[in-house]
């Protein structure tokens, strides 16, 4: 990677500051992971509940380094042809049609099948060369000049077979294509894999990765995130709303509100010109935070307790 990138990733502190300037407030641990990923040339396997900024981490890193982000969304049934490379069949077919005449010329005068085949052989594997190769995200990331950030999103949704496919790419940063040979990464890409833990990732893959678990942030960190993302919310409301969300996370919910939901909620409150948390308004906007009817009900029942310990809520008007 170029000099500028090297400087950006020179130390954990630099990364932390860099992320902050890109609007991504992170804990020290996350910055450490990125630092190590770069230093050890290892991919990072990011785990954590949905909505804590796993994907955003890769986005921000790409922005920070000013390199393209190449994203591969995993799903069941994802295979080589979609992830790695594919031959451009139509182009191959078209060329054979167009070149039919040429082939005729070429083969004219050849006596017998053996000689014709011999002549054809001289042209080698024209139709299986790089011109006919359609690179998919993984190969694209390998061939990117100046490096790239490769995001393999929701790896837990893919099949086991696909994981094995990743092993060569993630440990040696190369791709083997039988017809062409091995393509090695020009610049080692920074790789992030995310997982929502719907199934266990194989040990072989885990062993090749740095393991980063992003939990829900602490209140202080979340306040900083809100300040950076929704700067117009004033300090007191910010403190209150973060405390409220933290209270919600303590409840037994189907899906606890994540950072992205806190941000959305902060934005909604801003739109509603709220300057403090009021019970009615919270009740009306609860659906921004909670996505299940059951959760909304059970949180609604305990709303007063959740809002209780912050008396300025009513006296602030």
């Amino acid at each position, binding site marked *: 990677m170029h000099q500028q990138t090297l400087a950006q990733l020179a130390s954990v502190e630099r990364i932390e500051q860099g992320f902050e300037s890109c609007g991504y407030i992170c804990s020290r641990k996350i910055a450490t992971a990125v630092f*190590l990923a770069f230093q050890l040339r290892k991919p990072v396997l990011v785990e954590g509940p949905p909505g804590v900024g796993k994907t955003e981490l890769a986005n921000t890193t790409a922005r920070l380094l000013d390199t393209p982000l190449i994203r591969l969304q995993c799903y069941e049934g994802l295979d080589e042809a979609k992830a790695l490379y594919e031959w451009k*069949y139509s182009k191959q077919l078209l060329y054979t049609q167009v070149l039919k005449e040429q082939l005729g010329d070429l083969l004219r005068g050849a006596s017998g099948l053996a000689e014709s085949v011999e002549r054809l052989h001289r042209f080698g594997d024209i139709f299986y060369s790089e011109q006919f190769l359609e690179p998919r995200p993984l190969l694209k990331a390998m061939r990117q000049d100046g490096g790239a950030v490769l995001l393999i999103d929701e790896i837990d949704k893919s099949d086991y077979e696909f994981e094995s496919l990743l092993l060569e790419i993630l440990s040696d940063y190369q791709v083997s294509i039988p017809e062409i040979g091995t393509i090695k990464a020009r610049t080692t890409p920074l790789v992030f894999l995310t997982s929502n833990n719907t199934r266990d990732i194989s040990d072989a893959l885990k*062993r090749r990765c740095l393991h980063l678990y992003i939990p829900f942030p602490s209140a202080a960190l979340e306040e900083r995130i809100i300040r950076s993302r929704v700067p117009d919310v004033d300090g007191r409301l910010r403190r209150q709303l973060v405390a409220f969300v933290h209270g919600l996370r303590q409840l037994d919910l189907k899906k606890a509100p994540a950072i992205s939901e806190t941000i959305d909620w902060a934005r909604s409150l801003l739109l509603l010109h709220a300057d403090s948390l009021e019970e009615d308004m919270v009740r009306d906007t609860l659906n921004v935070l909670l996505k299940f009817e059951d959760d909304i009900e059970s949180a609604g029942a305990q709303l007063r307790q959740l809002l209780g310990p912050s008396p300025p809520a009513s006296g602030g008007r």
Partner: protein
Amino acid sequence: MQANLVNFIRVLRSHEMRVSPAETLDAFAVTAALGYADRDLLRDGLAMTLAKTAEEESIFLQCFERYFGHVPPDLSRTALPPAADRVMEAPDLEDDSATDPASTLRLAARDDAALRALLAKPVMRDLVTNDRTELSLAINRAAQSVGLRQIEVFTQKGQFTRRMLDALGEEHLRRAIIELERRDSPVLPLVQRYRDILREQVRDRVEREYLLQAAGKTRQFMDAILSQTRLNAIEHRYLHRVHDLVRKMARKLAARHSRRRRRVQRGQLDMARTLRGAMAHDGVLFNTCWRGVRRNRPQILALCDVSGSVAAYAKFLLLFLYSLQDVLPKVRSFAFSSHLGEVSRLFAENPVEKAIELAHRQYGGATDYGASLRDFATLAMRDIDRDTSVIILGDARNNRGDPRLDLLRDIHRRARRVIWLNPESRRAWGTGDSDMLRYQSACHFSAECNNLRQLERIVDQLLKSTG
């Protein structure tokens, strides 16, 4: 430090974390990249390479705190004996040097050759000058020289403490104390206090090492023993430990075999899809599409005898069934003695201990294999197909009743496999009221199974053939 890190990784391994040599190398690379200066940074970095699950991370953090977390106490504070005032000649003096026990000692040593000699000893020097780093280094050296790492059981603690103290040269202090006592010297409590601090430090060090090393080793040892002990000989209080073992085993088996199930074989040509795909290429059949053959997932029906004659085994067999049902899809469990009933729901809805107790209560009694097989046939016979494995866990002691071999033959014909696991040793099969030899003729596979290791081997085989 390298040796330290290697040793730390060994500790992690003894706490049931799997750390491969490749990960050990990564850990070294991490320390090289991060340095040792920032402890928290190093901890996070190492956690990322060494811990692969949330569970492992918590083990890691615990071990890290124990291993690297020890901060030597400030000796100058603790060293100040409670009785210091009495010793001091001028307690009201504000001067720091006078209230400092170290200077008091040095003062006294000026005209005391024995004390001077004592102060010259390296260990005493570290104590008196409050050089914590040097002291903990000395303690570590002593730990290494006596092989503290080998500590395995708590009875060794005293022995190791003694040997480490000897290696540190505590005898000089001891001798000096005897001498000072004889002379009734005013600095006696000070020297005693230093001795106590040293002992405390060493004892702490031994304790920490014990917690690190022995806790893991003891558990490994226990597991090894438990998996070889006959199931009926395992005491009830180890049930939980066995449960963990069985669960781990079942999980391992499930992980190893779940992949086989997913394999899709290439089946017939899918003409419609092939033609549709060919449209893009001017009707040339460029790409052929195949219909996959997806293997039905194997179904397992497990029957467990819970009668009095196998009561001690039944507990563990049920435990095993419970764990199996937990990790494998499509397992149905049945319990029987005089009659038979399905306990799958019971298992799914209750925690393990409760479920086992309930199964015992509902289905315990005198054994009647004939009636139980009949019940089983009415309950599940039509669900048995060529992807079904039937496992029977029992001793085949039928109290001389009708064995209903015809029913088992039926099951044998329809099922992919019938497996009989008998806790009795093969020699006892067919003796007394055992119908095992007759039942055996209607099983694809029968085996003696009375410890966890055998159980694991058999189930592994079973899954291989059904997978």
